[in-house]
């Protein structure tokens, strides 16, 4: 064949400038959600200034804290092209277990949280083992687990209710106390969020989760220990959900068996709104956390804006659709603009 002919190096330049733009687009996923959030808060604040007074901000953060935590756990699973529908049930079971454990005793918050984490991790271990070793579809398995855990929880609780009065004050303080005016719960969620984000970005095993979600086949060929990683993701998600259960107890004091019933869809929508692709491989926990914050803020805004209760669901649904549509359209436009730009 012909002699070696070097390709001209001109495109390299184009590649460079395109790169920073590509970066922008990728970050835009989080930016557009953050933008929507800011708009919503500003709008509500202008209409009702009290929305952002001390108590108001505190409430916003408190409301989002648990959902953020769950969204972080869920993202780690979704990134691997799996899903964990059992989170709602896990929170319920763990909250009840923690309540049962703590009620009438003086167990400290640490002990209670550890129990919650252990319960959650155990549930995650079961789902994760089925998904990774059984090589069966995550959606079906975790939907099954949703029912199983829920059934066990109901069966155990027998309609019993744990009241705030029985829960040790130190545990309740965790849910309502604060440092420097910032309540503990959002601080805890933020810590978990930041640590998870850092791990996903800077550790091999974190990157491997993305690799698995992006292409399981390629991950196998690249020697990624898929089963171990997927199992790890589930145990993490379960542990986080279990932890959220113990925080639930701390925050609400009262627990019954069906706490967080039906939350799985809310968590999944927070994750999806936050730009974590349901088919795996892309998205960040920051985005998911923003998604969770956006969802809870929509709820808070609507009640502050005195929207008729009958309209709340409809408007929340419409806003959710608007948020993801705008995000998508912006993205498509940007990508196209980028392509055209790189032409010159």
């Amino acid at each position, binding site marked *: 064949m012909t002699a070696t002919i070097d390709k001209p190096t001109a495109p390299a330049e184009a590649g460079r400038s395109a790169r920073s733009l590509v970066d922008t687009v990728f970050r835009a996923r989080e930016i557009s959600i953050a933008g929507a959030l800011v708009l919503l808060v500003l709008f509500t604040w202008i209409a*009702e200034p009290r929305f952002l007074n001390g108590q108001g901000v505190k409430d916003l953060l408190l409301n989002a804290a648990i959902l953020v935590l769950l969204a972080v756990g869920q993202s780690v699973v979704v990134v691997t092209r799996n899903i964990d529908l059992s989170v709602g049930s896990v929170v319920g079971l763990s909250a009840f277990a923690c309540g049962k454990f703590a009620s009438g005793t003086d167990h400290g918050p640490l002990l209670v949280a550890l129990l919650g984490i252990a319960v959650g991790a155990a549930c995650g271990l079961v789902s994760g083992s089925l998904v990774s070793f059984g090589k069966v579809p995550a959606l079906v398995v975790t939907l099954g687990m949703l029912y199983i855990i*829920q059934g066990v929880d109901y069966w155990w*609780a027998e309609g019993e*209710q744990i009241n705030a009065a029985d829960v040790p004050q130190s545990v309740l303080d965790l849910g309502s106390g604060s440092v420097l005016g910032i309540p503990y719960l959002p601080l805890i969620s933020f810590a978990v969020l930041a640590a998870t984000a850092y791990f996903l970005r800077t550790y091999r095993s974190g990157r491997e989760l993305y690799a698995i979600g992006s292409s399981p086949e390629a991950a196998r060929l690249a020697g990624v220990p898929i089963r171990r990683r997927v199992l790890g993701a589930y145990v993490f998600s379960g542990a986080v959900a279990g932890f959220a259960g113990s925080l639930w107890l701390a925050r609400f004091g*009262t627990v019954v068996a069906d706490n967080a*019933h039906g939350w799985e869809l809310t968590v999944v929508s927070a994750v999806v709104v936050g730009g974590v692709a349901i088919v795996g491989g892309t998205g960040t926990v920051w985005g998911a956390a923003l998604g969770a914050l956006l969802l809870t803020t929509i709820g808070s805004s609507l*009640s502050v804006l005195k929207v008729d209760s009958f309209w709340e669901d409809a408007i929340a649904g419409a806003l959710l659709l608007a948020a993801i549509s705008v995000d998508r359209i912006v993205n498509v436009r940007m990508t196209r603009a980028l392509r055209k730009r790189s032409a010159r």
Partner: protein
Amino acid sequence: VTLAGCGGTTKKDSDHNSGGGAKATDAKADPGAPLKKGLKLAFLPKQINNPYEKIVDDAGIAAAKEFSGEGKEVGPSDASASSQVSYINTLIQQRQDAILIAANDPNAVCGPLKQAMKKDIKVVAYDSDTAKDCRQLFINQASSEEIGRSQVQHIAEQLDYKGEIAILSATQNATNQNTWIEFMKDELKKPKYKNMKLVKTAYGDDDDQKSFQETQGLLKAYPDLKGIISPTTVGIAAAARYISGSSYKGKVVINGLGTPNQMRKYVKDGTVEQFSLWDPKKLGYLGSYAAAALASGQITGAEGEKFKAGKLGEYTIGKDGEVILGPPTVFDKNNIDDFDF
């Protein structure tokens, strides 16, 4: 609306279809008949894992033992009418002697309940009524009118008859809550409440966390809110919990229906001054005896008939087959420690 009435089946045509009336059975009551032994009673609550309903049903099942009957509780884990219907069907197949139901929807459970009555199974509604022609008796915890009006009266006294108030209810479709709310609104029309204003009815869906956040929303949206009435045990507990941990404590009055065990903490810490409820155990107990009296032929459900409900004494059936347990108890820090449920 323009299309209305241009032929076809409309509501007006079919109105005559549903005029069944409350006529229960043609059988004659035999007030002297003894309570039958071995009666099979089934309690069908709104939802099995609701702590309040659990108390009611357990008391009813215990009561059945007193007259050598056999009680059981079955039901769905979600508070929906459609799931209750499946259970009614099974209870018919199992040939129970009586079904006691707290209806999630007064009409959706009607068809199957009528079938049950046709098969000579007695139907007693408790806590939350069904349509009148779908049951023989309704054991009302207290007269709906009294509950509704008294709640407004209580909170008005606490507020000196002025200020904005809101209601935190259960689900948008809860029959009993909606009835009470109607009476509350009616009561508020009286001139003595002219300085009070009901600003909003919020729905916490009998979900602890939702009720909690609805309370937040109410307080933020209505800065001048002075009081919240929550005629549901889940709602009032959640509202009290939010207020007790917020800057609104001591500034906003909470009243409504709650259980002493749930509210004890908030009464003690001063968040809540008073609230009311009937004794759910008595409700279950009365229901059980009423069902037994029906099944034994002592009563048929007609107005004016009387029956003995064990240690609670004698009750008389009122209009539309309603039996009223008695006035609700008002709990405050003086008496709350006398109760444990």
